[in-house]
């Protein structure tokens, strides 16, 4: 390519540097809103009081003693832009103990998040995904899960049984809420 002889070399490199600079400015400017929105979900979610309220799952007499029963946890949920008044947010295995206290575990497997089943024959909780197994007390038995099932706090108000639902980080030995 022939260079236009009218432009002296120093001026030429100045012009190209300027072009690169302006091009960079365009890219940077355009990136700001794009990246900002991209990382938006990483901001801490605004705390919504309603979401932390315990979820009613039935009355005491509905739970047989000693046998885990699966309950769906239904409450109002706002998912990004849409609110639904009765949405299943998860499920729990709830056991009524002999002294009428309750034990509850999240059905989410602490390995990688599949739903854990009750295996009535072997009296364990079994994960259908990668064969993790847990005792009825939630303790880890075998498989790749790094810890036992995640307990959920149960509250009994009069006859009503309520569950404080939480989600936990998967794949780690220690239990962290997310």
């Amino acid at each position, binding site marked *: 390519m022939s260079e236009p002889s009218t432009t002296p070399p120093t001026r030429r490199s100045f012009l190209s540097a300027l072009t690169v600079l302006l091009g960079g400015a365009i890219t940077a400017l355009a990136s700001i809103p794009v990246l900002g929105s991209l990382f938006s979900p990483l901001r801490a979610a605004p705390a919504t009081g309603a979401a932390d309220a315990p979820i009613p799952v039935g009355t005491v*007499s509905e739970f047989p003693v000693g046998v885990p029963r699966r309950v769906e946890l239904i409450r109002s949920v706002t998912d*990004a832009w*849409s609110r639904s008044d009765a949405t299943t947010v998860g499920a729990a295995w709830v056991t009524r103990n002999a002294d009428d206290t309750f034990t509850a575990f999240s059905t989410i497997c602490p390995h990688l998040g599949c739903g*854990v089943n009750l295996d009535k024959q072997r009296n364990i909780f079994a994960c259908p995904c990668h064969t993790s197994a847990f005792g009825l007390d939630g303790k880890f038995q075998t498989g790749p899960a790094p810890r036992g099932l995640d307990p959920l706090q149960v509250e009994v108000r009069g006859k009503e049984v309520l569950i404080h639902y939480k989600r936990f980080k*998967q*794949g780690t030995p220690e239990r962290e809420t*997310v």
Partner: protein
Amino acid sequence: MLKRFDAWLDSRTGHRALLHAALYENVPGGARWRYVFGSAVTVLILMQAATGIALELYYSPSTTDAWASVNYIETQVMLGSLLRGIHHWGASAIVVVVALHLLQTLWAGAFRAPRELNWLAGFILLQIILGLALTGYLLPWDQKGYWATQVATSIAGTVPLIGPKLQTFLQGGTSYGNLTLTRFHTLHVLLLPAALFSVIAVHVALFRKHGVTPPDLPAAELERKAEPFYPRQLLYDTAVSAVGVGVIFYLAWRLGAPLEAPADPSSQYLARPEWYFLPLFQLLKYFEGGAELVGTIILPGVAMGFLAGLPFIHAVFSRRIPNLHRVLAGALTVGLMGVGALGALAVSADRSDPAVAALAAKAHEEAMEARRLASMGGVPASGPLNLYRNDPLVWGHRVVVSQCQKCHNPCDTQPYKGSPCLEGYASRAWISRFLRNPRAPHFFGNTKIDDMEAYTGPQESADALTEFIYSQGGRPDVTVALAKKGEELFESEGCASCHTLDGVGSGLGPDLKGWGSREWSYAFIRTPDATRFFGELNEMEAFDHLRLPEEELQAVTAWLHAQGSQPLKFP
């Protein structure tokens, strides 16, 4: 005329030279079948693009709409199920042909200098294609996509240090929801395809620059057999692509694409990824207690690193080891076979596990049920899960399973030891069988009630009686004349000596006015020991509103009433 137009166009675009360069590229050693895979993948990718665009016209990426819109494509859009089937099977076919393409270039030693960068471009294409496959099956927001993808994003969450942030970033939040769908959707239809086509352009340009990697023949031989790409090689390429497309159409037409029940975060679903991710899935089972990272990230990472680094490994060691490219090709092929074996292990583990079969059968049933409900006037705007909640039959069935079947076992239990079983209850078949043998195990055989005598009259009369009793349930399909006849027989054959028809009852046998109707069942379940029903003979527990809340009982009676038109489930 055409010629003149062509000349005019050529002077403006130069397309003839372009076409010539494309068609008359020299193929040293001549056309070969094993060169076809690259073209075949390209054709399949174009087909994915076309079908994908068509699907995009109907698809709606939100948690409330996604499943419904996919179900709409399956059931309402003309040829929609075929369209989706092609897109589904096309994805699998691409993975297969890419693997063949990889093996072919591997054994030809095409990763060696000067084609290192093209090997890398191919490697990147492989990752993009796997990414498209992974992001694609979340989009229907059905059980399979939801659960299998959860496992994938949870794996991202186990990455040291950045894991949790990475997972939140990918999911668009701390749990799955609308933003997960919009992100995966953007990746699947915008970002990844754009990347795919850009890298394909580079891949093809580099391929054109270096040409095919010719077989190990003397140069003169190659020279002698050389021929242009067009017509033979082009024909080979097109023929194989046509076979591939044919197979995909056949599978799409015969099998379609699966659509499981809508994603339900509270369910236990058997999360299994698509077949090409099964080896990774299987790998997860082996590493326990803190070593998960080995299975989730380290091993797959090492394998992928080896694949990408192949040309450079070759460059470093080739002087010391003769024929190194064959050794490397052999090693990779064995590795690939190992990957296949892992997948086979996953399949065989599932095959031999009855719990898996049961879960799969249940999932299939739920899928059919959801689609049946959706076909009755569409999916509620509040989301497909409300299909179930608004449907008293589905809900009633759930309650029956959890509350009633403790005693009234499912009819197909063997041997049957429960109280009267309820599937097909109050249907004509149920009544006529009952009249003939009330002490059969599926009726009162396992209870203390043995006062009822079997009816031994002629079949005609039995039919008339059956119709009469059936008519009490408030059924729309009663044959009135026959029921009338049955009513007369009711008196003359002696039924009336124990059973009343006044809605009050005598305490000897249940009053049969309205028997099988919702009202009758409702009152019965609340107070089975009333004189109207079994009185002193009663063995069933009463279900007051604490044990069975009002709405649940309504659902149960709706379910029971619907049994009148269901078949019996025992021999």
